[in-house]
């Protein structure tokens, strides 16, 4: 099973935007369960002042989406490996659709993102899934779409890009 060291090696993201702590389950080509612990020591809480009510510590939805997306990316990288895809590929985020956020995660919670591949077609990856805290489903992701392209296209790409290259992510 992938360790946090493997995750750091796989994702082109660097600190402090590596938002997957552990892979709990992985079936290349199928699904992944990735964990991310929420902690008060994270940057998103740096500006919080004493006296704010607890609701204000809800983990930002934007970071929750990014965390889920990184789990999906790890699933893709492992899928790509078994398909012996070129090492020079990039994942370019295109769309996120039909998501509902039922409840928030708070410091002390561990988010469990369960992502499943819907299909990979015409170099486009379609995934869906849910996010749990313990046994509560706090969010459902109807669809995330990423295009699979060469790293070369990174500069002209839309939104967030992630690569299968395991070299240091210096995009020169």
């Amino acid at each position: 099973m992938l360790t946090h060291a493997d995750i750091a090696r796989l994702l082109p993201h660097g600190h402090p935007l590596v938002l997957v702590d552990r892979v709990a389950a992985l079936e290349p080509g199928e699904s992944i369960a990735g964990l991310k612990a929420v902690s008060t020591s994270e940057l998103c809480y740096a500006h919080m002042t004493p006296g704010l009510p607890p609701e204000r510590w809800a983990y930002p939805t934007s970071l929750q989406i990014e965390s889920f997306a990184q789990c999906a990316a790890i699933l893709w990288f492992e899928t790509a490996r078994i398909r012996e895809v070129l090492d020079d590929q990039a994942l370019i985020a295109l769309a996120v659709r039909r998501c509902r956020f039922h409840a928030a995660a708070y410091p002390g919670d561990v988010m469990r993102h369960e992502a499943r591949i819907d299909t990979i077609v015409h170099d486009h990856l379609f995934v869906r899934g849910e996010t749990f805290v313990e046994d509560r489903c706090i969010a459902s992701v109807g669809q995330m779409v990423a295009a699979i392209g060469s790293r070369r296209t990174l500069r002209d790409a839309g939104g967030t890009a992630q690569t299968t290259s395991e070299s240091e992510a210096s995009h020169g």
Partner: protein
Amino acid sequence: MVDRARMEELRELVAEVLELDPDEIEDHADFKDAYDVDSLRAIEVLAQIERRYRLDIPQRELADMTNLSAVYDVVSRYAGWPVAST
């Protein structure tokens, strides 16, 4: 002679992907101009067609699939349906 049943199937399929009513999809209305279909939506339409009819249609055909009638033309070639008369 177009297979009208197939044409209507395609209309429904396209409508579903675009989240529109089938009634809104006209035979010759340009996807991009009339329905704001971008490259991602086009891929999704293509993927749905391939899944529905168990076809493999190369991505390069997308360039010609600019309206519903044109979609029919392309799909009919791969699926062996009657070809539309111009």
